[in-house]
């Protein structure tokens, strides 16, 4: 094939683009676990293959996270248990992994820490008119709240639901620092949760954090139950039919304020299915905060190239065309009756780092890709929205709204 200049392939090469198709994107040591199908997993072959690819994205993400941890961007002693072959990522990937984790951590921390006190209710509250751009509580108090007697809620119980959790370590990381919710639920495909359950059960670092002598496995090892942490297996495309019942069976309470996290998850399923989740949450939960981190902007040169490159690794982003912009990410919620929604891209989040923090991460490694970073960061967003069911009595409803609004004020 050599001779003349360059290696010439046949005139038309129909295969995957050269840069993308380097075998399966899964991490080393990941054999697609085909042994533990639940009936809902019996899709046609291509779908099964696609699901394996989706699961593989967690492997990619966790390696990136560990790279950031090892270089000092992030502090997380739990990530390393999920990575067989660590690998150092390029600086801009480390920076982005840091930023994504930090952003979602900030939401989670504020959500957990926020409480409801009588004094805070009288000073600020949100109005009930849905807008697409407000995030923070307005400063004008609503007449209804000041007039009503407020029952102090001592440490209101909260829940966190991590959709498509993969190898995420947030529960452990937070609890190690003394931050925990009443209940933390993680959900993913059985093959993924089975692997995670093994790591958790096998390592004292994890079981010590859970700290529940009644910690037990279930469903053939694909689920794990404890007092404040549950790992559940399921298919997010069947959220209402199969996941909701499981949640409820483990003590999930729709009356408690709940944070739903989707960290590069909803983007991988059809918009109809992700809408169904948003709809269910909006309709059934008394108060909820939904935080989404995912790709946007598929149509500019960089976005189009991103889709092509991912496609060559057989990774598709079915959700991206439905919610391709910051505005549409907000409307995703506000059009479904959510109170307030806001989306910002990663550049905005990067800009809002304190000078001190920016200096700290800049000192960790050489960073010579400012333009490329900005391009990449333009194509990722964090979108959040909150709602509290209108049928609830005051002051409860205002309390809940206040709690949620404060969680996103940053």
């Amino acid at each position: 094939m050599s001779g003349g200049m360059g290696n010439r392939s046949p005139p038309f090469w129909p295969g995957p683009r050269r840069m993308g198709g380097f075998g399966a994107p899964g991490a080393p040591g990941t054999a697609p676990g085909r042994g533990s199908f639940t009936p809902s997993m019996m899709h046609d072959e291509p779908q099964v293959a696609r699901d394996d690819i989706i699961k593989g994205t967690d492997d990619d993400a966790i390696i990136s996270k560990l790279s950031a941890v090892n270089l000092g961007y992030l502090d997380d002693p739990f990530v390393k248990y999920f990575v067989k072959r660590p690998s150092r990522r390029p600086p801009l990937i480390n920076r982005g992994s840091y930023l994504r984790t930090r952003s979602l951590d900030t939401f989670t921390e504020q959500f957990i820490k926020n409480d409801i006190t009588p004094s805070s209710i009288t000073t600020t509250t949100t109005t009930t008119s849905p807008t697409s751009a407000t995030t923070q509580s307005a400063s004008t108090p609503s007449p209804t709240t000041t007039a009503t007697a407020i029952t102090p809620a001592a440490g209101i119980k909260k829940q966190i639901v991590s959709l498509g959790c993969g190898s995420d370590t947030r529960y452990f990381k937070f609890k190690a620092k003394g931050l925990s919710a009443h209940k933390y639920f993680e959900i993913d495909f059985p093959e993924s949760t089975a692997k995670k359950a093994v790591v958790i059960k096998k390592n004292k670092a994890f079981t010590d954090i859970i700290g529940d002598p009644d910690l037990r496995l279930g469903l053939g090892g694909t689920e794990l139950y404890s007092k404040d942490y549950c790992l559940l297996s399921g298919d997010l495309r069947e959220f209402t039919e199969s996941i909701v019942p499981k949640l409820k069976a483990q003590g999930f309470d729709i009356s408690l304020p709940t944070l739903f996290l989707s960290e590069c998850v909803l983007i991988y399923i059809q918009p109809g299915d992700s809408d169904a989740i948003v709809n269910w949450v909006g309709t059934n939960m008394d108060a909820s905060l939904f935080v989404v981190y995912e790709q946007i902007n598929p149509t500019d040169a960089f976005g189009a190239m991103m889709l092509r490159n991912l496609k060559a690794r057989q990774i598709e982003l079915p959700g991206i065309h439905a919610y391709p912009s910051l505005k549409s990410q907000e409307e995703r919620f506000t059009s479904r009756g959510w109170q307030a929604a806001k989306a910002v891209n990663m550049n905005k989040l990067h800009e809002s780092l304190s000078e001190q923090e920016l200096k700290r991460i800049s000192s960790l490694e050489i960073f010579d890709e400012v333009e490329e970073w900005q391009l990449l960061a333009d194509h990722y967003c964090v979108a959040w929205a909150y709602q509290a069911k209108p049928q609830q009595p005051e002051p409860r409803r205002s309390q809940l709204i206040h709690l949620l609004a404060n969680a996103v004020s940053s």
Partner: protein
Amino acid sequence: MVLDLDACIESLFQRQLLAESVIKEICEKTKELLMSESNVVHIKAPVTVVGDIHGQFYDLLEIFKIGGYCPDTNYLFLGDYVDRGLYSVETISILTCLKLRYPDRVQLVRGNHESRAVTSTYGFYTECMKKYGTSDVWHYFTDLFDYLTLSVVIDNMIFCVHGGLSPSIHTIDQIKVIDRFKEIPHEGPMADLVWSDPDPGREEFAVSPRGAGYTFGSMVVEKFLHENRMDHILRAHQLCMEGFQVLFDDQLSTVWSAPNYCYRCGNLASILEIGVEGERHFNVFEAAPENERPTPAEAQRTLFSNGVPQSLFSNGGGGSNGAGVGGGPNGAMTFAGASGSNGGIDPAQDTIHYFL
């Protein structure tokens, strides 16, 4: 050994790597050649100026296709030959050979990536380890980089540098007295020349977001050109979606020659063709067509110039794998929990990374 440069060049055009000993000799000879170059090399038009290439070997071939081959076309390369792309070794090998073969037709300026510190982080070191099994080739090239000139002046009118201007440098003569034969420092005039960026929104110097060098504005540009009696600054260093950018009322331009940079940015690239009368034309091009690039399997195979696939050397090229890795510069390649003898070298090095 008698060095047959033409044979080397031909092998490299077929993306066959040169043997380590050949690289060593070529680097030695090129250093001797470069040693006698001033920090400011004066050349005449016509010349074709090339910006960042970053190991995108197939796009370098494209550049020769559209710009013409050496020695028929005179070339000025503005640095950043290595890192980020998959073929930094092949790219710098062929450019070094061309410089050695046609010293008056090829000019190589130093970029900020021609540095030990930067290449340890951005891929060239890793690529050398992967393709040769030891860090020797990386050492040969990074030693060579210390000899690359810092700037070129075309027809006494166009000042060419990789990055930009420095608050410490007002005249060309000040550049000439820099001791360039060393690793690029963290700061100072030499660092500024390879790291700085223009800022059309400003007039003076300001702190650079890159953490090295400065940004410089319109007054700085005008002053420099006036003081040195030149009419244009030509540089690279910054990604341009359209392949080039012209600023400050045509007093400065950026040429960027890595299309679809990192196989991710979707940008165009260009080369700047300067004619005999000094007329400037940006020849814009896209990434080389897909059907002219190797398949993934082919890309993984690296051939040596004797045609022997690199895989026959397994992970060691002499069994010294690991020796150079753990002891990599600044310990950059090792970290906690790394298993296996590859010392943390990314097996998925060739993956185009996103956040998933």
